[in-house]
Protein backbone atom coordinates (compact mmCIF):
# COMPACT_ATOMS: atom_id res chain seq x y z
CA UNK A 1 0.00 0.00 0.00
CA UNK A 2 1.27 3.44 -0.86
CA UNK A 3 0.45 6.52 1.19
CA UNK A 4 -1.56 8.22 -1.50
CA UNK A 5 -3.34 5.05 -2.61
CA UNK A 6 -1.89 5.26 -6.09
CA UNK A 7 -0.66 2.01 -7.62
CA UNK A 8 0.68 3.59 -10.79
CA UNK A 9 1.75 7.16 -11.38
CA UNK A 10 2.79 8.22 -14.85
CA UNK A 11 3.96 11.77 -15.44
CA UNK A 12 4.89 13.32 -18.79
CA UNK A 13 5.95 9.96 -20.12
CA UNK A 14 7.53 10.17 -23.56
CA UNK A 15 8.92 7.36 -25.65
CA UNK A 16 10.79 7.95 -28.90
CA UNK A 17 11.96 5.04 -31.02
CA UNK A 18 15.07 5.94 -32.97
CA UNK A 19 14.73 5.35 -36.69
CA UNK A 20 16.84 6.03 -39.78
CA UNK A 21 14.81 8.84 -41.34
CA UNK A 22 12.62 10.32 -38.61
CA UNK A 23 12.42 9.19 -34.99
CA UNK A 24 9.04 7.71 -34.14
CA UNK A 25 7.28 9.31 -31.21
CA UNK A 26 5.34 6.40 -29.80
CA UNK A 27 4.24 8.24 -26.71
CA UNK A 28 4.13 11.95 -25.90
CA UNK A 29 3.62 13.47 -22.48
CA UNK A 30 1.33 10.79 -21.16
CA UNK A 31 0.19 11.44 -17.61
CA UNK A 32 -2.25 9.44 -15.56
CA UNK A 33 -2.60 7.51 -12.36
CA UNK A 34 -4.19 4.27 -11.37
CA UNK A 35 -5.48 3.83 -7.84
CA UNK A 36 -5.07 0.69 -5.85
CA UNK A 37 -7.62 -2.00 -6.64
CA UNK A 38 -8.85 0.04 -9.54
CA UNK A 39 -9.66 -1.42 -12.96
CA UNK A 40 -8.50 0.83 -15.78
CA UNK A 41 -9.01 0.22 -19.48
CA UNK A 42 -6.80 1.77 -22.09
CA UNK A 43 -8.36 2.00 -25.55
CA UNK A 44 -7.13 3.31 -28.85
CA UNK A 45 -6.32 2.38 -32.41
CA UNK A 46 -3.63 -0.16 -33.18
CA UNK A 47 -0.17 1.37 -33.04
CA UNK A 48 -1.08 4.31 -30.79
CA UNK A 49 1.38 3.31 -28.09
CA UNK A 50 -0.83 1.29 -25.76
CA UNK A 51 1.58 -1.60 -25.56
CA UNK A 52 4.51 0.80 -25.17
CA UNK A 53 2.91 2.22 -22.02
CA UNK A 54 2.34 -1.25 -20.65
CA UNK A 55 5.88 -2.38 -21.36
CA UNK A 56 7.36 0.68 -19.69
CA UNK A 57 5.19 0.13 -16.61
CA UNK A 58 6.26 -3.53 -16.59
CA UNK A 59 9.90 -2.45 -16.74
CA UNK A 60 10.45 -4.27 -20.02
CA UNK A 61 11.13 -1.10 -21.99
CA UNK A 62 13.15 2.03 -21.21
CA UNK A 63 11.39 5.37 -21.29
CA UNK A 64 12.81 8.38 -23.11
CA UNK A 65 11.52 11.02 -20.68
CA UNK A 66 9.12 11.37 -17.80
CA UNK A 67 8.40 9.57 -14.59
CA UNK A 68 6.82 6.22 -13.85
CA UNK A 69 6.13 5.05 -10.32
CA UNK A 70 4.68 1.69 -9.43
CA UNK A 71 3.60 1.33 -5.81
CA UNK A 72 5.41 4.58 -5.07
CA UNK A 73 8.81 3.47 -6.41
CA UNK A 74 10.36 4.49 -9.75
CA UNK A 75 10.43 1.69 -12.32
CA UNK A 76 14.00 0.70 -13.12
CA UNK A 77 13.44 -2.79 -14.42
CA UNK A 78 11.04 -5.72 -14.26
CA UNK A 79 9.42 -6.34 -10.89
CA UNK A 80 7.94 -9.50 -9.60
CA UNK A 81 4.98 -7.54 -8.27
CA UNK A 82 3.57 -7.48 -11.80
CA UNK A 83 1.54 -10.14 -13.58
CA UNK A 84 1.23 -9.91 -17.35
CA UNK A 85 -1.27 -11.42 -19.76
CA UNK A 86 -0.53 -11.07 -23.46
CA UNK A 87 -2.75 -11.16 -26.53
CA UNK A 88 -1.70 -14.73 -27.25
CA UNK A 89 -1.62 -17.12 -24.29
CA UNK A 90 2.20 -17.50 -24.52
CA UNK A 91 2.03 -20.93 -22.95
CA UNK A 92 5.04 -23.20 -22.89
CA UNK A 93 4.05 -26.09 -25.12
CA UNK A 94 6.34 -28.47 -23.27
CA UNK A 95 4.75 -27.83 -19.90
CA UNK A 96 1.44 -29.12 -18.63
CA UNK A 97 -1.19 -26.63 -17.50
CA UNK A 98 -0.16 -26.79 -13.84
CA UNK A 99 3.53 -26.51 -14.73
CA UNK A 100 2.78 -23.48 -16.86
CA UNK A 101 1.01 -21.87 -13.93
CA UNK A 102 3.93 -22.74 -11.65
CA UNK A 103 6.48 -21.16 -14.01
CA UNK A 104 6.65 -17.77 -12.22
CA UNK A 105 7.22 -19.58 -8.93
CA UNK A 106 10.14 -21.51 -10.44
CA UNK A 107 11.70 -18.44 -12.01
CA UNK A 108 11.31 -16.34 -8.89
CA UNK A 109 12.87 -19.17 -6.89
CA UNK A 110 9.90 -19.41 -4.51
CA UNK A 111 9.01 -22.59 -2.64
CA UNK A 112 7.14 -24.96 -4.93
CA UNK A 113 5.49 -26.81 -2.05
CA UNK A 114 4.26 -23.58 -0.59
CA UNK A 115 2.84 -22.20 -3.84
CA UNK A 116 1.42 -25.39 -5.34
CA UNK A 117 -1.87 -25.05 -3.43
CA UNK A 118 -2.08 -21.47 -4.62
CA UNK A 119 -1.52 -22.55 -8.24
CA UNK A 120 -4.33 -25.07 -7.81
CA UNK A 121 -6.50 -22.33 -6.34
CA UNK A 122 -5.84 -20.16 -9.42
CA UNK A 123 -6.81 -23.05 -11.68
CA UNK A 124 -9.99 -23.46 -9.69
CA UNK A 125 -10.65 -19.74 -10.00
CA UNK A 126 -10.43 -20.03 -13.79
CA UNK A 127 -12.30 -23.33 -13.91
CA UNK A 128 -9.39 -25.45 -15.10
CA UNK A 129 -8.84 -27.83 -12.20
CA UNK A 130 -9.60 -30.96 -14.21
CA UNK A 131 -7.26 -29.89 -17.02
CA UNK A 132 -4.20 -29.42 -14.83
CA UNK A 133 -2.23 -32.27 -16.43
CA UNK A 134 -3.11 -31.47 -20.05
CA UNK A 135 -0.68 -29.94 -22.49
CA UNK A 136 -1.58 -26.51 -23.94
CA UNK A 137 -2.22 -27.89 -27.44
CA UNK A 138 -5.04 -30.00 -25.99
CA UNK A 139 -6.95 -26.89 -24.85
CA UNK A 140 -9.14 -24.42 -26.70
CA UNK A 141 -8.08 -20.78 -27.21
CA UNK A 142 -10.26 -19.50 -24.38
CA UNK A 143 -8.98 -22.15 -21.98
CA UNK A 144 -5.39 -21.38 -22.92
CA UNK A 145 -5.95 -17.72 -22.12
CA UNK A 146 -7.43 -18.73 -18.76
CA UNK A 147 -4.24 -20.66 -18.03
CA UNK A 148 -2.28 -17.55 -18.83
CA UNK A 149 -4.44 -15.49 -16.44
CA UNK A 150 -3.89 -18.09 -13.69
CA UNK A 151 -0.17 -17.86 -14.35
CA UNK A 152 -0.22 -14.07 -14.10
CA UNK A 153 -1.88 -14.29 -10.68
CA UNK A 154 0.00 -17.19 -9.11
CA UNK A 155 2.83 -15.21 -7.49
CA UNK A 156 0.28 -12.83 -6.00
CA UNK A 157 1.34 -9.69 -7.88
CA UNK A 158 -0.12 -6.39 -6.79
CA UNK A 159 -0.59 -5.26 -10.38
CA UNK A 160 -2.17 -7.08 -13.31
CA UNK A 161 -1.30 -5.90 -16.82
CA UNK A 162 -3.49 -7.23 -19.61
CA UNK A 163 -2.39 -6.50 -23.17
CA UNK A 164 -5.38 -7.22 -25.43
CA UNK A 165 -5.86 -10.55 -23.69
CA UNK A 166 -9.04 -11.48 -25.57
CA UNK A 167 -8.15 -10.03 -28.96
CA UNK A 168 -7.57 -13.42 -30.51
CA UNK A 169 -10.80 -14.98 -29.25
CA UNK A 170 -14.15 -15.26 -31.00
CA UNK A 171 -16.91 -12.88 -29.91
CA UNK A 172 -18.81 -15.37 -27.77
CA UNK A 173 -15.78 -16.64 -25.90
CA UNK A 174 -14.70 -13.06 -25.50
CA UNK A 175 -17.95 -12.13 -23.77
CA UNK A 176 -17.56 -15.08 -21.40
CA UNK A 177 -13.97 -14.16 -20.67
CA UNK A 178 -15.04 -10.60 -19.83
CA UNK A 179 -17.42 -11.97 -17.22
CA UNK A 180 -14.72 -14.25 -15.90
CA UNK A 181 -12.17 -11.46 -15.66
CA UNK A 182 -14.66 -9.29 -13.80
CA UNK A 183 -15.28 -12.12 -11.34
CA UNK A 184 -11.56 -12.71 -10.81
CA UNK A 185 -10.95 -9.02 -10.33
CA UNK A 186 -13.77 -8.65 -7.82
CA UNK A 187 -12.49 -11.67 -5.88
CA UNK A 188 -8.82 -10.75 -5.88
CA UNK A 189 -9.06 -6.97 -6.18
CA UNK A 190 -5.80 -6.62 -8.08
CA UNK A 191 -5.08 -3.23 -9.57
CA UNK A 192 -5.64 -3.92 -13.26
CA UNK A 193 -4.67 -2.19 -16.48
CA UNK A 194 -6.46 -3.61 -19.50
CA UNK A 195 -5.35 -2.69 -22.99
CA UNK A 196 -7.98 -3.33 -25.62
CA UNK A 197 -9.36 -1.93 -28.82
CA UNK A 198 -12.85 -3.06 -28.08
CA UNK A 199 -14.68 -0.08 -26.61
CA UNK A 200 -17.57 -2.16 -25.16
CA UNK A 201 -15.06 -4.44 -23.49
CA UNK A 202 -13.18 -1.47 -22.07
CA UNK A 203 -16.38 0.06 -20.72
CA UNK A 204 -17.79 -3.21 -19.40
CA UNK A 205 -14.79 -3.97 -17.22
CA UNK A 206 -13.41 -0.63 -16.15
CA UNK A 207 -13.86 1.91 -13.40
CA UNK A 208 -12.27 4.42 -15.74
CA UNK A 209 -11.43 4.28 -19.44
CA UNK A 210 -8.35 6.05 -20.79
CA UNK A 211 -8.47 7.01 -24.43
CA UNK A 212 -5.37 7.23 -26.60
CA UNK A 213 -4.86 8.74 -30.06
CA UNK A 214 -2.01 7.76 -32.34
CA UNK A 215 1.04 9.50 -33.88
CA UNK A 216 2.20 10.80 -31.53
CA UNK A 217 0.61 8.56 -28.92
CA UNK A 218 -1.28 10.72 -26.48
CA UNK A 219 -3.80 10.17 -23.73
CA UNK A 220 -6.63 12.45 -24.75
CA UNK A 221 -9.22 11.68 -22.15
CA UNK A 222 -10.04 9.67 -19.08
CA UNK A 223 -13.70 8.80 -18.69
CA UNK A 224 -15.37 7.63 -15.47
CA UNK A 225 -17.66 4.67 -15.93
CA UNK A 226 -20.40 5.03 -13.38
CA UNK A 227 -22.13 1.72 -14.08
CA UNK A 228 -22.94 -0.29 -10.93
CA UNK A 229 -21.09 -3.53 -10.18
CA UNK A 230 -21.25 -6.43 -10.71
CA UNK A 231 -21.93 -5.80 -14.35
CA UNK A 232 -24.10 -8.26 -16.18
CA UNK A 233 -24.34 -9.23 -19.85
CA UNK A 234 -27.83 -7.62 -19.94
CA UNK A 235 -26.27 -4.33 -18.94
CA UNK A 236 -24.55 -4.23 -22.32
CA UNK A 237 -27.95 -3.48 -23.82
CA UNK A 238 -28.83 -0.69 -21.37
CA UNK A 239 -28.99 2.98 -22.32
CA UNK A 240 -26.37 3.88 -19.69
CA UNK A 241 -23.88 1.41 -21.15
CA UNK A 242 -24.51 2.58 -24.69
CA UNK A 243 -24.01 6.17 -23.55
CA UNK A 244 -20.61 5.31 -22.07
CA UNK A 245 -19.57 3.48 -25.24
CA UNK A 246 -20.72 6.42 -27.33
CA UNK A 247 -18.75 8.88 -25.20
CA UNK A 248 -15.54 6.85 -25.43
CA UNK A 249 -16.08 6.39 -29.15
CA UNK A 250 -16.50 10.12 -29.67
CA UNK A 251 -13.27 10.87 -27.82
CA UNK A 252 -11.44 8.34 -29.94
CA UNK A 253 -12.76 10.03 -33.05
CA UNK A 254 -15.36 7.60 -34.31
CA UNK A 255 -17.81 9.73 -36.27
CA UNK A 256 -20.63 7.31 -36.73
CA UNK A 257 -21.43 6.94 -33.03
Amino acid sequence: MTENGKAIEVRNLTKVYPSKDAPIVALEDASFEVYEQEFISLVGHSGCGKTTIMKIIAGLLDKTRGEVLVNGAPVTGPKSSTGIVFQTPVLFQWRTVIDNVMLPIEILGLSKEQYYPRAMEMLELTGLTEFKDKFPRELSGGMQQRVSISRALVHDPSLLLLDEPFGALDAMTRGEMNMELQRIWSEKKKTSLLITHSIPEAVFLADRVMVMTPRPGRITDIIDIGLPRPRTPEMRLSVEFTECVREVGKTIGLQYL
Partner: protein
Amino acid sequence: MVERFKELGTITFSLVLFTVIWELSVWVFSVSEFLLPAPSVVITTLVLKIGPLLQHCLVTFRETVYGFLMGLVLGVISAVMIVYSRLLQNLLYPLILVAQIVPKVAIAPLLLVWVGYGEISKVLIAFLVSWFPIIVTTVQGMRMVQPEMLDLVKSLQASDWQIFTKVRLPNALPHFFGGLKIAITLAVIGAIIGEFVGGNTGLGYLVMVANYEVNTPLMFAALIVLSALGLVLYGVLVLLEMWLIPWSLGEEEQQMTGFGM
Protein backbone atom coordinates in the same frame (compact mmCIF):
# COMPACT_ATOMS: atom_id res chain seq x y z
CA MET B 1 -5.90 -46.35 -34.51
CA VAL B 2 -8.10 -48.10 -37.07
CA GLU B 3 -6.97 -45.48 -39.59
CA ARG B 4 -3.37 -46.33 -38.79
CA PHE B 5 -3.95 -50.04 -39.46
CA LYS B 6 -5.67 -49.23 -42.72
CA GLU B 7 -2.71 -47.10 -43.75
CA LEU B 8 -0.33 -49.89 -42.79
CA GLY B 9 -2.40 -52.33 -44.81
CA THR B 10 -2.21 -50.13 -47.90
CA ILE B 11 1.55 -49.76 -47.58
CA THR B 12 2.06 -53.53 -47.17
CA PHE B 13 -0.22 -54.20 -50.11
CA SER B 14 1.68 -51.83 -52.43
CA LEU B 15 5.01 -53.40 -51.40
CA VAL B 16 3.74 -56.92 -51.98
CA LEU B 17 2.23 -55.92 -55.32
CA PHE B 18 5.48 -54.31 -56.40
CA THR B 19 7.46 -57.43 -55.49
CA VAL B 20 5.03 -59.74 -57.31
CA ILE B 21 5.15 -57.66 -60.50
CA TRP B 22 8.93 -57.58 -60.28
CA GLU B 23 9.15 -61.35 -59.83
CA LEU B 24 6.73 -62.06 -62.68
CA SER B 25 8.41 -59.60 -65.06
CA VAL B 26 11.80 -61.20 -64.49
CA TRP B 27 10.41 -64.70 -65.30
CA VAL B 28 8.17 -63.64 -68.18
CA PHE B 29 10.83 -61.60 -69.98
CA SER B 30 13.63 -63.94 -68.81
CA VAL B 31 15.84 -61.05 -67.63
CA SER B 32 19.34 -62.27 -66.90
CA GLU B 33 20.33 -62.38 -63.27
CA PHE B 34 23.26 -59.95 -63.50
CA LEU B 35 20.92 -57.27 -64.85
CA LEU B 36 17.99 -57.68 -62.51
CA PRO B 37 17.67 -60.64 -60.18
CA ALA B 38 14.19 -61.79 -59.20
CA PRO B 39 13.08 -61.01 -55.60
CA SER B 40 13.14 -64.75 -54.82
CA VAL B 41 16.83 -64.93 -55.84
CA VAL B 42 17.64 -61.82 -53.81
CA ILE B 43 15.90 -63.23 -50.75
CA THR B 44 17.70 -66.55 -51.13
CA THR B 45 21.02 -64.72 -51.32
CA LEU B 46 20.03 -62.65 -48.32
CA VAL B 47 19.34 -65.79 -46.29
CA LEU B 48 22.46 -67.64 -47.45
CA LYS B 49 24.79 -64.70 -46.89
CA ILE B 50 23.14 -63.36 -43.75
CA GLY B 51 26.29 -63.92 -41.66
CA PRO B 52 28.71 -61.77 -43.69
CA LEU B 53 25.92 -59.28 -44.47
CA LEU B 54 25.28 -58.67 -40.79
CA GLN B 55 29.02 -58.45 -40.07
CA HIS B 56 29.40 -55.72 -42.68
CA CYS B 57 26.19 -54.12 -41.50
CA LEU B 58 27.58 -53.90 -37.97
CA VAL B 59 30.60 -51.99 -39.30
CA THR B 60 28.45 -49.52 -41.23
CA PHE B 61 26.16 -49.20 -38.23
CA ARG B 62 29.10 -48.35 -35.98
CA GLU B 63 30.51 -45.78 -38.39
CA THR B 64 27.11 -44.17 -38.87
CA VAL B 65 26.26 -43.98 -35.18
CA TYR B 66 29.67 -42.69 -34.11
CA GLY B 67 29.64 -40.07 -36.86
CA PHE B 68 26.07 -39.11 -35.99
CA LEU B 69 26.81 -38.83 -32.26
CA MET B 70 29.84 -36.69 -33.03
CA GLY B 71 27.64 -34.49 -35.21
CA LEU B 72 25.07 -34.32 -32.43
CA VAL B 73 27.48 -33.27 -29.69
CA LEU B 74 29.51 -30.85 -31.80
CA GLY B 75 26.38 -29.63 -33.57
CA VAL B 76 24.65 -28.71 -30.33
CA ILE B 77 27.79 -27.08 -28.93
CA SER B 78 28.29 -25.01 -32.09
CA ALA B 79 24.61 -24.09 -32.13
CA VAL B 80 24.74 -22.78 -28.56
CA MET B 81 27.89 -20.80 -29.36
CA ILE B 82 26.30 -19.34 -32.46
CA VAL B 83 23.16 -18.31 -30.62
CA TYR B 84 25.01 -16.73 -27.70
CA SER B 85 27.92 -14.98 -29.38
CA ARG B 86 27.82 -12.78 -32.43
CA LEU B 87 31.59 -13.06 -32.75
CA LEU B 88 31.48 -16.85 -32.73
CA GLN B 89 28.56 -16.76 -35.13
CA ASN B 90 30.59 -14.71 -37.61
CA LEU B 91 33.62 -16.94 -37.09
CA LEU B 92 31.81 -20.26 -37.27
CA TYR B 93 29.05 -19.81 -39.80
CA PRO B 94 31.25 -19.30 -42.88
CA LEU B 95 33.34 -22.33 -41.92
CA ILE B 96 30.29 -24.46 -41.35
CA LEU B 97 28.78 -23.29 -44.60
CA VAL B 98 31.94 -24.07 -46.55
CA ALA B 99 32.11 -27.49 -44.90
CA GLN B 100 28.53 -28.04 -45.99
CA ILE B 101 28.89 -26.76 -49.55
CA VAL B 102 31.98 -28.82 -50.43
CA PRO B 103 30.64 -32.11 -51.79
CA LYS B 104 31.48 -34.76 -49.24
CA VAL B 105 32.06 -37.33 -51.98
CA ALA B 106 34.82 -35.12 -53.31
CA ILE B 107 36.64 -34.70 -50.00
CA ALA B 108 36.26 -38.33 -48.99
CA PRO B 109 39.50 -39.36 -50.78
CA LEU B 110 41.33 -36.54 -49.00
CA LEU B 111 40.05 -37.71 -45.62
CA LEU B 112 41.25 -41.20 -46.44
CA VAL B 113 44.71 -39.85 -47.17
CA TRP B 114 44.70 -37.98 -43.87
CA VAL B 115 43.33 -40.55 -41.45
CA GLY B 116 43.78 -43.83 -43.32
CA TYR B 117 41.46 -46.44 -44.70
CA GLY B 118 40.10 -47.52 -41.33
CA GLU B 119 36.73 -46.83 -39.78
CA ILE B 120 37.76 -43.38 -38.58
CA SER B 121 37.63 -41.88 -42.06
CA LYS B 122 34.04 -43.13 -42.47
CA VAL B 123 33.06 -41.82 -39.07
CA LEU B 124 34.44 -38.43 -40.05
CA ILE B 125 32.46 -38.31 -43.28
CA ALA B 126 29.28 -39.38 -41.49
CA PHE B 127 29.98 -36.64 -38.94
CA LEU B 128 30.60 -34.02 -41.63
CA VAL B 129 27.29 -34.65 -43.36
CA SER B 130 25.23 -34.90 -40.19
CA TRP B 131 26.33 -31.92 -38.13
CA PHE B 132 25.06 -29.24 -40.51
CA PRO B 133 21.34 -30.04 -40.29
CA ILE B 134 21.73 -30.38 -36.52
CA ILE B 135 23.35 -26.96 -36.18
CA VAL B 136 20.88 -25.23 -38.47
CA THR B 137 17.77 -26.66 -36.85
CA THR B 138 19.04 -26.19 -33.29
CA VAL B 139 20.00 -22.57 -33.94
CA GLN B 140 16.63 -21.97 -35.52
CA GLY B 141 14.81 -23.60 -32.61
CA MET B 142 16.66 -21.56 -30.01
CA ARG B 143 16.15 -18.33 -31.92
CA MET B 144 12.52 -18.82 -32.88
CA VAL B 145 11.20 -18.04 -29.44
CA GLN B 146 7.99 -16.02 -29.31
CA PRO B 147 9.08 -12.50 -28.22
CA GLU B 148 6.29 -12.42 -25.62
CA MET B 149 7.72 -15.57 -24.09
CA LEU B 150 10.97 -13.72 -23.45
CA ASP B 151 9.06 -10.67 -22.18
CA LEU B 152 7.15 -12.91 -19.81
CA VAL B 153 10.21 -14.51 -18.23
CA LYS B 154 12.10 -11.20 -18.21
CA SER B 155 9.19 -9.58 -16.37
CA LEU B 156 9.87 -12.22 -13.72
CA GLN B 157 13.54 -11.23 -13.66
CA ALA B 158 14.71 -14.51 -15.12
CA SER B 159 18.48 -14.98 -15.34
CA ASP B 160 20.21 -15.77 -18.66
CA TRP B 161 20.67 -19.32 -17.45
CA GLN B 162 16.96 -19.64 -16.67
CA ILE B 163 16.08 -18.24 -20.10
CA PHE B 164 18.39 -20.83 -21.64
CA THR B 165 17.19 -23.85 -19.69
CA LYS B 166 13.53 -22.98 -19.33
CA VAL B 167 12.85 -21.29 -22.68
CA ARG B 168 15.41 -21.63 -25.45
CA LEU B 169 16.44 -25.23 -24.91
CA PRO B 170 12.98 -26.80 -24.66
CA ASN B 171 11.77 -24.53 -27.44
CA ALA B 172 14.52 -25.89 -29.70
CA LEU B 173 13.69 -29.57 -29.08
CA PRO B 174 11.11 -30.16 -31.85
CA HIS B 175 13.40 -28.44 -34.39
CA PHE B 176 16.36 -30.32 -32.99
CA PHE B 177 14.64 -33.68 -33.49
CA GLY B 178 13.72 -32.66 -37.02
CA GLY B 179 17.42 -32.03 -37.61
CA LEU B 180 18.41 -35.33 -36.01
CA LYS B 181 16.08 -37.23 -38.32
CA ILE B 182 17.62 -35.61 -41.39
CA ALA B 183 21.11 -36.11 -39.95
CA ILE B 184 20.76 -39.84 -39.29
CA THR B 185 19.72 -40.62 -42.87
CA LEU B 186 22.59 -38.47 -44.14
CA ALA B 187 25.03 -40.17 -41.75
CA VAL B 188 24.25 -43.57 -43.29
CA ILE B 189 24.93 -42.14 -46.72
CA GLY B 190 28.15 -40.54 -45.46
CA ALA B 191 29.45 -43.83 -44.08
CA ILE B 192 28.64 -45.59 -47.37
CA ILE B 193 30.45 -42.91 -49.38
CA GLY B 194 33.51 -43.49 -47.22
CA GLU B 195 33.33 -47.24 -47.80
CA PHE B 196 32.95 -46.73 -51.55
CA VAL B 197 36.07 -44.61 -51.73
CA GLY B 198 38.29 -46.99 -49.84
CA GLY B 199 38.20 -49.67 -47.19
CA ASN B 200 37.71 -53.36 -46.75
CA THR B 201 34.61 -53.66 -44.59
CA GLY B 202 31.08 -52.34 -44.43
CA LEU B 203 28.01 -52.63 -46.60
CA GLY B 204 29.31 -50.00 -49.04
CA TYR B 205 32.44 -52.07 -49.53
CA LEU B 206 30.28 -55.19 -50.00
CA VAL B 207 28.23 -53.44 -52.69
CA MET B 208 31.46 -52.49 -54.49
CA VAL B 209 32.86 -56.02 -54.31
CA ALA B 210 29.57 -57.52 -55.51
CA ASN B 211 29.67 -55.02 -58.33
CA TYR B 212 33.17 -56.06 -59.42
CA GLU B 213 32.13 -59.71 -59.33
CA VAL B 214 28.92 -58.92 -61.22
CA ASN B 215 27.10 -60.55 -58.30
CA THR B 216 23.94 -58.51 -58.66
CA PRO B 217 21.83 -60.60 -56.25
CA LEU B 218 24.38 -59.89 -53.50
CA MET B 219 24.27 -56.18 -54.34
CA PHE B 220 20.52 -56.21 -53.93
CA ALA B 221 20.77 -58.14 -50.68
CA ALA B 222 23.27 -55.57 -49.39
CA LEU B 223 20.95 -52.75 -50.46
CA ILE B 224 18.07 -54.32 -48.55
CA VAL B 225 20.16 -54.61 -45.38
CA LEU B 226 21.34 -51.04 -45.88
CA SER B 227 17.80 -49.72 -46.23
CA ALA B 228 16.76 -51.68 -43.16
CA LEU B 229 19.64 -50.13 -41.25
CA GLY B 230 18.58 -46.61 -42.23
CA LEU B 231 14.97 -47.36 -41.42
CA VAL B 232 15.77 -48.78 -37.98
CA LEU B 233 18.00 -45.83 -37.06
CA TYR B 234 15.34 -43.37 -38.20
CA GLY B 235 12.67 -45.30 -36.32
CA VAL B 236 14.71 -45.20 -33.11
CA LEU B 237 14.80 -41.40 -33.37
CA VAL B 238 11.06 -41.19 -33.99
CA LEU B 239 10.45 -43.33 -30.89
CA LEU B 240 12.88 -41.23 -28.86
CA GLU B 241 11.05 -38.11 -29.98
CA MET B 242 7.67 -39.53 -29.04
CA TRP B 243 9.03 -40.53 -25.66
CA LEU B 244 11.00 -37.37 -24.85
CA ILE B 245 8.74 -34.67 -26.28
CA PRO B 246 5.19 -36.04 -26.29
CA TRP B 247 3.92 -32.45 -26.23
CA SER B 248 5.19 -31.83 -29.74
CA LEU B 249 4.58 -34.37 -32.50
CA GLY B 250 2.91 -32.19 -35.09
CA GLU B 251 1.86 -34.28 -38.08
CA GLU B 252 3.05 -31.57 -40.48
CA GLU B 253 6.50 -31.68 -38.97
CA GLN B 254 6.63 -35.44 -39.31
CA GLN B 255 6.01 -35.13 -43.00
CA MET B 256 8.52 -32.35 -43.48
CA THR B 257 11.42 -34.37 -42.18
CA GLY B 258 10.88 -37.48 -44.23
CA PHE B 259 13.51 -39.63 -45.88
CA GLY B 260 15.77 -38.69 -48.72
CA MET B 261 18.45 -36.14 -49.33
